């Protein structure tokens, strides 16, 4: 598992691996199991997640303030120009 994640992270940081034949030759030289090599080479991300038994439906909701949070933050009528404290130079 560690080798696979390391390889994927390397994919994200090594520009040469964006070339398919270099990716394949690097994969071939790695000690990653053959079935996973094939998934990486063919860019089968969903299948790769299943193979690694990763949670498929991670919540990736943007963490925004919601309506029921509190009265102060959701009352635009009361909104004043934002003030900032700034030290005099």
């Amino acid at each position, binding site marked *: 598992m560690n080798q696979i994640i390391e390889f994927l992270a390397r994919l994200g940081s090594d520009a040469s691996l964006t070339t398919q034949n270099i990716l394949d030759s690097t994969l071939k030289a790695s000690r990653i199991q053959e079935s996973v090599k094939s998934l990486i080479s063919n860019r089968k991300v969903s299948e790769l997640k299943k193979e690694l038994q990763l949670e*498929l439906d991670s919540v990736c909701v943007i*963490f925004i303030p919601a309506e029921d949070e509190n009265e102060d933050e959701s009352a635009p009528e009361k909104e004043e120009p934002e003030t900032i404290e700034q030290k005099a130079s």
Partner: protein
Amino acid sequence: VQGSLTCVGVGMMLGAHLSPLARSHIEQADLVFTGVSDGFVELWLKQLNQDVRSLQSCYGDGKSRNVSYREMVELMLAEVRLGKRVVGAFYGHPGIFAKPPHDAIARAKAEGFEAQMLPGISAEDCLYADLGIDPGKVGCQHFETTQLMLYHRQLDTSAHLVLWQPGLAGDLTMGIRPTGRAERRLLVELLAKDYPLEHECILYEAPTMPLQSARIERLALKALPLAQIDLHTTLVLPPARALKPNTEMRERLKALARKTINNQDNTDNVLPFAPQTTAPKTTATQTTTRRKTT
């Protein structure tokens, strides 16, 4: 030992977007809380630090996201109070459309702990790169979709419009499951007040794995209710009309330029409002106003 909190952004793509400083904070932390969009990223962070704890468990069906956010803040703060160096690692940028990192940092500071935020590459950054949009060219408005629906906002159709979380359009439960076609029809109805129904929109998803490409799907505004829209999909509406020149301001600026050329300019009076009649006080702090940007 004094506890501390550092919230870092891990960027959108595994292995590609983490800054050296953020990585160093993750590696040196006593423990790392994660709020990431992908199981691969979580596994990767576990290789950088031995004590990585996911905040995913704070979410729940039928549970308000606000409750989840408060729990996340509490989890992080509890460890800071124990004197630990805590890192909150969040996908994208930890301060953009992100409540828990801002709240946790403010709370930590209020309680006398060191706390800071380190930026990351956000979905917005990826969007500009993948769609070839320069927000400086004609401007760009950003809204969270449900907020746009719940409040009266002024849309500038000569600028790009980016709507975040259209998958949760009109969600009043603050939940974590996508809403349906009925809510999206209302969204289309709202947007149709400013845009033609045939206006081309873009559904965008930033790639989170080096093996992936961005999702860039173009469709007419009227087709949105039936489109495949997930939690991480972003909706982009390109400008519907050209910029309209402000002829009055242009003339005034030209006149100003002529004055400058003729050395008639009063350089002490460069602000577009009346100068103060009394000299400003020279104090240690000064309150200024700043216009909010969208």
